[in-house]
């Protein structure tokens, strides 16, 4: 049986891992190479590296950092942040990434998803969506771009469906409202997207309690959970999370002790 994945996320700025609340008030959380190695060794199922300054296309040191992190990461490794061209995906794959996540550039130029899927296969094209609830409407969310700073009038569900048709192989779905708050994932948002597409959905934003992780995998129908703060600040270990999920009959890879 396919297991549910637990994915630590490295938000990287100036060669350091940082973490904020609702994408703001960043604080230092460690060295990306060290953290990446640790998570790979400790039984994480994948690792995500996001350059939150979105400078991958223009910043050689970021690509070098990706290379360094990849050298010690023996689990699937996704890299994103400011990718605008298929060539940049090619460069990152050659640098040790296994998948690339695209956000703003896909909204501005949806054909990028198709081009990337054709060239590299849809299994390495991750569409990242930063979703914000469209208040006062209930169960409606719009896409935001540029690290959440710019709202659009694009409906999240419609965008997810379109992205799948274009060639996205996976959706990394972040709730802007929940991110960094540790208040729990947005279950309704995650379930709505998971119901609308056939490709896997990674739930992100709001991981806090172990219960919230189990909830989004069960009721939220997510294929994977992404979390940052709870792992960086050692609130929980990967092992603790997986043991908790296993006790609740959620299939996970426990790996070594």
């Amino acid at each position, binding site marked *: 049986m396919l*297991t549910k994945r637990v994915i630590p996320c490295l938000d990287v700025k100036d060669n350091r891992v940082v973490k904020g609340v609702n994408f703001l008030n960043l604080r230092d959380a460690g060295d990306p190479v060290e953290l990446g190695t640790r998570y790979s060794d400790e039984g994480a199922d994948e690792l995500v590296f996001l350059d939150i300054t979105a400078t991958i296309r223009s910043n050689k040191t970021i690509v070098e950092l990706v290379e360094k992190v*990849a050298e010690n990461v023996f689990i699937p490794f996704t890299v994103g942040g400011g990718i605008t061209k298929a060539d940049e995906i090619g460069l990152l794959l050659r640098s040790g990434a296994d998948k690339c996540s695209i956000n703003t550039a896909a909204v501005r130029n949806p054909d990028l998803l198709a081009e990337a899927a054709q060239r590299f*296969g849809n299994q390495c094209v991750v569409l990242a969506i930063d979703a914000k609830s469209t208040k006062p409407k209930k169960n409606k969310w719009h896409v935001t771009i540029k690290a959440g700073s710019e709202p659009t009038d694009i409906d999240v569900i419609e965008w997810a469906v379109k992205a799948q048709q274009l060639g996205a*192989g996976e959706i990394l779905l972040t709730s802007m409202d929940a991110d960094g708050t540790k208040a729990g994932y947005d279950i309704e948002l995650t379930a709505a997207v998971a119901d609308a597409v056939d490709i896997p959905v990674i739930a992100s934003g709001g991981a806090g309690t172990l219960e919230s992780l189990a909830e989004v995998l069960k009721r939220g129908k997510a294929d994977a959970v992404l979390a940052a703060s709870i792992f960086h600040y050692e609130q929980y270990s990967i092992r603790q999370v997986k043991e908790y999920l296993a006790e609740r009959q959620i299939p996970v890879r426990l790996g070594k002790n």
Partner: protein
Amino acid sequence: MIVIIDYGVGNVKSVTNAVRHIGCDVDVSCEPEDVENADGVILPGVGACGYAMKVLGPLADVIRKVAINGKPLLGICLGFQLLFDESYEHGVHQCLGLIAGRVIPIPPGLSIPHMGWNLVKLPENVKLFEGLGSEKHFAFAHSYYADITDSQAAVAYTNYGIDIAAAVQKKNIFGCQFHPEKSAGEGLKILRNFECICKETSD
């Protein structure tokens, strides 16, 4: 020396990182001469079969020849799919034809691609899986799978709605649909086993 074939398709770097990590002497190349002189060959790759065969070009014949002559060959993911007769991904494409079978789409029903860690039942007496026990989780990322009809092939299966070939061995030819280079310690163990197989064959 193990040669990893770099033909511009996919995550060659990930495979190289993993093989280097286990302390193996490795060369990344697309030169026929290097392939012919290697103790063993790893054929990685992600993406579509037709495109990969096109990019391989004349190197496909070199790989076929050295494999038939007994050199250990390990195909990974798309490299695994290329071992079979033909692929039905975006049309019908001839592959290397080293193991009888065809590559067809995973039937709809579950999320596609088949993405993540799935439990693989490992057959006994396959050197590639030595020391791994009867079942382990490995990392998958694919939308097509190999329907293997070769009676000489030993096959490891995983279940994803249907039984899916996760790995194969036919004599000196090995393949993994999953990514050993991305399957943590268990995956590295498989690469170590392959290195041993290469050493034994070259001695």
